[in-house]
């Protein structure tokens, strides 16, 4: 303790000093902990921030047409022997992962070999979340529908299992549940006799997360984001590089774009 402190520091003042010193220590410890937590949690928080900025919504809040969710898939980074997006989709949505003709496959890796050039590429293909979806047009009960934010879904309560949407989809993106199901995921309703397909992991998107396939890709080849936001990473990337859509001639205005095919 210094002379000055000794002279000018009555007991009350000394107590305040002690509190201040303690506060500083706690502040220091707190800042350190926050920094550590920041290092550990930043990616997740950052994703939530990004998603929130791009239109993720609170429970009870309806989807907004201000947002259009989309994906950009960079096939130049997609290895043909990698299946992690498919595995992640199956795990997230409770699919068996079976590949028999009657098994549901919401996403599959398609190996493409161009006839003229012999160039090969590998691309994950799922529901392309069209702005003008043929599946929605043909569905007799309106069970196939497009959310305001562009995600195309099937209402499991009104699907009668006619499979007309499967016939109409140009992307083979829909599956029909051929068998009774067990051990379903609570937030991914499915049902025997109904049609289903990629939901863009709507249960994750609505929580501010990105779809499981995008999350799982080790090469970050699947970029998810809001196509309506010109400043979003996906919009910026689409402006920068050449992208295409599968069966672009059909002019369905798909929400999924590809680079490198």
């Amino acid at each position: 303790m210094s002379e000055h402190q000794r002279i000018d520091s009555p007991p009350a003042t000394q107590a305040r000093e002690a509190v201040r010193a303690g506060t500083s220590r706690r502040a220091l410890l707190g800042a350190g902990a926050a920094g550590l937590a920041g290092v550990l949690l930043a990616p997740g928080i950052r994703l939530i921030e990004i998603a929130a900025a791009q239109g993720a919504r609170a429970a009870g809040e309806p989807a907004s047409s201000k947002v259009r969710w989309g994906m950009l898939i960079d096939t130049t980074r997609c290895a043909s022997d990698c299946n992690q997006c498919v595995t992640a989709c199956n795990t997230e949505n409770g699919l068996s992962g079976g590949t028999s003709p009657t098994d549901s496959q919401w996403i599959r890796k398609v190996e493409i070999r161009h006839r003229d050039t012999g160039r090969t590429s590998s691309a994950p293909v799922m529901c392309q979340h069209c702005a003008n979806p043929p599946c929605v047009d043909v569905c007799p009960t309106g069970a196939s529908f497009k959310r305001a934010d562009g995600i195309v879904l099937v209402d499991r309560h009104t699907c009668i299992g006619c499979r007309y949407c499967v016939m109409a989809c140009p992307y083979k993106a829909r599956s029909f549940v051929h068998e009774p199901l067990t051990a379903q995921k609570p937030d991914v309703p499915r049902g025997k006799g109904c049609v289903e397909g990629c939901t863009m992991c709507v249960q994750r998107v609505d929580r501010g997360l990105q779809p499981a396939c995008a999350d799982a890709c080790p090469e970050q080849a699947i970029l998810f984001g809001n196509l309506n936001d010109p400043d979003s990473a996906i919009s910026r990337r689409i402006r920068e590089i050449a992208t295409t859509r599968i069966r672009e001639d059909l002019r369905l205005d798909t929400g999924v774009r590809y680079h490198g095919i």
Partner: protein
Amino acid sequence: MQASIVTTAPAPHRFWLVAALGAALVALGLGAAHYMEVEGHVVTGMNNHVVWGLPHVFAIFLIVAASGVLNVASIGSVFGKAVYKARAPLSGLLCLAMLAGGLMVLMLDLGRPDRMIVAATHYNVTSVFAWNVLLYSGMAAIVAVYLWTLMERRMNRYSKKAGLAAFIWRLVLTTGTGSIFAFLVARQAYGSALLAPMFIVMSFAWGLAVFLLAQAAVYAWNGMTVPAHASRRMTRLLGVFVAATLYLVAAHHLTNLYFARQFDFERFVLVEGGLYPLLFWAGYVAVGSVLPLLLIYGGDAARPRNPVIASALVVVGAFCALYVFIIGGQAFPLELFPDATTRSTFLDGQVAPYAPSLPELLLGIGGVAAAFLITVIGVHVLDFLPHDASPESGATDDGG
């Protein structure tokens, strides 16, 4: 003036025997549908690549033929042909019966047949399927009214108007059935405006073939034979319809052959697709079209069996044509990348497998049996036997 008709009334037990046979087949079909509903469609040959299978072949045949069989009544009521007018009630009955049978198969093949009420209460105006729900129920209502005007003497004066309404409605209905496929934008096998008129002409041929078979059975049941002049005229009309169908099918394929992007599909369905080219050429073209035409125009037309054989062959050809059209059209791989070959765990770039299963077959037969049963009961309890005027009094009738 009506000619006196001498019939040999069938013994009552024969009716019950035939009705029991029909009911048993309907029960088998219902049992098969129940089995499919409980176990899921995994017990059928259908899968995620061929989602419409044998039940749809049966259902679409029955619905298309239902609209076509009404032509007999239309030619009578709308165009005033006496030979056909005498057969209008039977034509209307067959239409209702086949419509019911076809819809039974279509509905029971749904993944969720228990949700019929959903289909009735949720209506998507852009869906061709939804349009067809209205068209089918409207058809049944209009034909029921038409039958009433035909069979209730006091209502006879309205029969021409009712017949005209039914004729227009049936054309719209078959347009709707063809449009189920015509509106499929991405599939190589479908997506052609030609399909609607093609289905209409197919319905003419297939409906008349079914009518001729049913007519022969009803006459035989009553110990009679179809009058030669009626048989001759209707059989020749069948020949015209069969030829017209063949023409439109040829036009459809020739159009595709002209488009480079359709070469692969045409090669598959006409040459390299295994069962599908076989069913197309041998089943539809040879057995279902050329042979009946030879029997009708080249054979001994006076032989009473020829119209029946020709009609049966046309029905066989219809099933072959629909099998190729519906199942072959799905088996051919959907083209995602037109300039590339593809492969995946989801059978991209590969011909999809399909082998019909017994439950599917039984469901389809159940639908036919339902139509049969309704017809048998209708013919038994009401007077649907054609009452022909004598050939002399029908001299103005040129046979359509």
